[in-house]
């Protein structure tokens, strides 16, 4: 059985798996970026009240592998609390939490590193505080973080594969299931690798392009 034949035969399963992966990704990306950006902005503004707890949480999370976090949320925590939560929701919660803190860290650091003098140069030109934020701070900071944020999102997409280990029927788990039926690991996992390459490579390329285009040298050497 060739790759085309396998994909054709199990197309419904693969599509459902892909859809689950995309659904999971959409939740992780959307909430992660919005909440992470808000947390990052708040953390740079209220350094002690928000910034420090957020950094601490991020520090602790960075020491826990995503897989361990996922397993811990799925088995011990639910058993301790005596609840059963849909594995999809558990995976979404775990990966979104990681994404939120990664995004928050990136945004907060960029905001704290923002050279104040760009704002002061605007101030002495008579530019209003609102315009300084909208036309100078946000565009410069966005250009600085865009490439990094994109890479984080690609990593989060790849991390969705771990969800298969807590029984989420995403694309990798479907591939495993199909493989257990037809036993063609070379073809199936190669096809899966290509699928991820098709999605991730353009995003990585876009990230590099954005970095080259927009990450300007602040020192103006």
């Amino acid at each position: 059985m060739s790759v085309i034949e396998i994909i054709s035969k199990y197309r419904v399963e693969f599509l459902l798996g892909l859809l689950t992966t995309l659904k999971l990704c959409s939740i992780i990306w959307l909430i992660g970026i919005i909440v992470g950006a808000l947390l990052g902005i708040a953390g740079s503004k209220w350094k002690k009240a928000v910034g420090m707890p957020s950094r601490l949480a991020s520090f602790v999370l960075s020491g826990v592998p995503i897989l361990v976090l996922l397993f811990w949320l799925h088995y011990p925590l639910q058993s301790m609390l005596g609840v059963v939560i849909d594995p999809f929701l558990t995976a979404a919660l775990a990966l979104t939490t990681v994404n939120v803190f990664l995004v928050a860290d990136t945004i907060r650091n960029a905001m704290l590193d923002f050279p104040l003098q760009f704002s002061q140069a605007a101030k002495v030109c008579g530019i209003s505080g609102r315009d300084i934020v909208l036309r100078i701070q946000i565009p410069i900071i966005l250009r600085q973080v865009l490439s990094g944020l994109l890479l984080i999102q690609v990593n989060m997409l790849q991390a969705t594969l771990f969800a298969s280990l807590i029984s989420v029927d995403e694309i990798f788990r479907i591939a495993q299931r199909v493989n257990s039926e037809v036993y063609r690991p070379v073809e199936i996992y190669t096809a899966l690798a290509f699928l991820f390459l098709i999605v991730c490579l353009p995003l990585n390329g876009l990230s590099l392009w954005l970095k080259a285009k927009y990450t300007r040298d602040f020192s103006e050497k």
Partner: protein
Amino acid sequence: MLRCYNLRKSYQSTERIDALNDVSLTVNPGEISVLVGPSGCGKSTLIRSLALLDLPDEGKIEVDNISYNFPFPPDKEFIKPWPKITVVFQQLFLWPHLTVRGNITLALKTAMSNGIENRYEEYITRFGLNDLSNRYPNQLSIGQRQRVAIVRALVLKPKYLLLDEITSALDVQHINRLMEDMKEIRNEGTGILLVTHLIGMAKQIGQQVYFMDQGRIIEQGGAESLRQPKTEGLRKFLSIVDV
């Protein structure tokens, strides 16, 4: 007239540093005042204080008929003196995401609603920046960037222009050109306060000279102060830098 009286400002690091100590100074419209002094003597702090970017601890600043008395109540808003007073910083701080046109017109858009293009064209032609309109700051030479920073300030037609060590990275050709530009700006009625290490330049264009050391104005006078210094401090300083 831009004038400050008895300004004091100190910072607390490992020990208390008096950056400004009883500093009084005047910048008249249509006149170039030059501020010289060794590194770390408080020149940039004075510029930032005069521009009300860092508020002094004590003293008074007058911008024409508006007085600012210090210490200033922290919760009170003050009348913004910008862009009547504007500053060109040593590191220029052109906005890196905007082209030359963007850098200059962004400031202009806040100052006027009509005639932006005409004013822009007038200044970039005058400063020879026509071919650079669509370039970003990192695509310009230091001399070009410096002219853009000056034009960004000048298009706003400030009454007082504070220039903080903008000559530090320039070659002779650029310095000569800058001197001509400054004379022209002065003749249009702008009061300039120039911080520089270039004593030759200060001698040529300075009408008022202030020598600062350890946060104090040690000597002040006309351009002749640089030829015949009265104080030992200025004499020593000149013997080191005026070679």
